[in-house]
């Protein structure tokens, strides 16, 4: 059974705001699924529809085999959700908040006490547990918010940009929780703007662009779909680069090329053994190479191919990350 399945899911906030414009999803149980896209591509809107917070304009979705429109209450019992913006109550302490969350899921008070102690330990908030949330730092709030999503031991967890704005240490911690829980069979639906995060954590990813899924597959599959290696060759002029591009494309073993100014990128399977051939061919054609780099194709290359632009992380978010790291 799929943990998450969607069919033609659509959300239009108005005729010209097509936040989600017909997506299909089929996420097997036990997977970490990554939903990648830049600001405004429709990630949060999708999460909100799948977690019963938002009614779709059209389409259907099942989470844990249950229709989100027909039986939202059962879906809510199955899923844990940490939204992009933490939603905490400043006046309660961390412990009170976690306990209330647990009790509202129908968990007994004894069991709640056990789980809350354990979770506070896991997210390193034991010492701050009895202080009002108002005084927590951004990272502490994020960790408490995450703990709130885990308290009823959900089998499917939605995390909307869980690491945006976190310092590298906390980010690493979050990644470890995800990996640990996933080892116990928990399915994750994770949105992110970080390619590194998707690459490290996710079994499968989907790339969203303007409300549509433009590429889907495992990171390795996606990378190999454009060739596993990338050879970047830099020339003295655009003109040279253009001539080199058509020359390189004819060489055996080249999957595809991309031309960007004075730069030609060749995607292929076995980069190391092809370098010599490329250099010789360019020499024959009388083209002088200024610089040559061999690297593995990255998800950034995939993203560029699928959307026509690089994945640009919101600058404000970067600033927040720096500020969070310094605090």
């Amino acid at each position: 059974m799929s943990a998450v399945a969607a069919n033609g899911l659509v959300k239009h906030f108005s005729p010209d705001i097509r936040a989600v414009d017909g997506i299909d999803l089929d996420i097997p149980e036990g997977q970490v699924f990554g939903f990648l896209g830049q600001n405004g591509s429709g990630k949060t809107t999708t999460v909100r529809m799948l977690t019963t917070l938002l009614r779709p304009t059209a389409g259907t979705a099942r989470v844990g085999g249950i229709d989100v429109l027909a039986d939202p209450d059962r879906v809510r019992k199955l899923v844990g959700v940490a939204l992009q913006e933490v939603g905490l109550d400043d006046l309660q302490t961390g412990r009170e908040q976690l306990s209330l969350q647990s009790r509202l899921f129908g968990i007994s008070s004894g069991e709640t006490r056990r789980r809350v102690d354990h979770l506070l330990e896991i997210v390193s908030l034991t010492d701050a547990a009895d202080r009002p949330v108002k005084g927590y730092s951004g990272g502490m709030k994020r960790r408490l918010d995450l703990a709130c999503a885990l308290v009823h031991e959900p089998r499917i967890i939605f995390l909307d940009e869980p690491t945006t704005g976190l310092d590298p240490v906390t980010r690493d911690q979050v990644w470890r929780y995800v990996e640990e829980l996933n080892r116990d069979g928990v399915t994750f639906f994770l949105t992110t703007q970080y390619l590194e995060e998707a690459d490290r954590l996710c079994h499968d990813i989907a790339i969203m662009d303007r409300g549509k899924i433009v590429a889907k597959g495992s990171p390795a599959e996606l990378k190999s779909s454009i060739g596993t290696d990338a050879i970047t060759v830099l020339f003295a002029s655009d003109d040279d680069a253009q001539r080199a591009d058509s020359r390189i494309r004819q060489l055996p073993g080249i999957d595809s090329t991309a031309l960007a100014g004075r730069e030609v990128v060749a995607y292929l399977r076995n980069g190391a053994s092809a370098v010599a051939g490329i250099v010789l061919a360019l020499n024959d054609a009388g083209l002088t190479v200024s610089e040559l780099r061999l690297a593995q194709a990255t998800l950034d290359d995939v993203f560029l191919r699928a959307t026509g632009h690089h994945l640009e992380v919101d600058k404000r978010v970067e600033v927040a990350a720096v500020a969070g790291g310094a605090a």
Partner: protein
Amino acid sequence: MTRFITTTWLLMARALREARRQPANDLGNAFIPLFFYAVTVGAVGGVAREAFGVDDYKGFQLPVALLQGAAGIAGGAGLALTQDIQSGYFEKLMLTSTPRFAIVLGRMLADAVKAFGLSILIIAMALAVGSGFETGPVGMLVLLVGTAAFALAYSGIGVAIALKTGSPQAAQAGFLIFFPLLFLAPTFAPIEVFATWLEVIARANPVTYLIEGQRSLITAGWEPAALAKGAAAIAGIAALTFTLTGLALRGRSR
């Protein structure tokens, strides 16, 4: 059903816990009715007998103070709800398997509990300055329960507006509509001495029956008809505000 009761209870306890942490909010709610009670009794009390035949004006004014206090407190649920909506905590509650209505009912009940407490204080003050109380302790309990029930019913206005708009200003403005209603009722004088136009309005105003019901317990004795009309007024207000709240709640969970 037990789930509904448990979760409502938990959320009421949370609201009360938070109220204790910001006592300033409720100090104003206690001060205003006591202040108006003192000045009204001070200004009119001396002439009430000659002017409109009221012997115990301290008792006569007591329901006004109770309703003012209860209405002030009943604005709390809506206001607090807008804060939950703005902080995103409301969505966290919506993501639990709590019955939707329990999420708002818990807050509204907290207002009722606070109104109950404040009413004890107000009644004690009134008795201390010499107000009578014809129906004794049992009547006091009925009065307290009735006032708390009114607070519960009335808090639904602010809650419905909060759910609909998410705006604290709107929630506060909406809840102020009680005050004109309070003064279009036999607040300072019995309805018999009103000008005809005011009497017509007052007779159509549910607050009139609330006040008269409460007042009967204090100054007259057990009057089933007055109590029944008062209870009906509360039930009518509750039916309206609970319906609006239910609709607004459905709108918000889209």
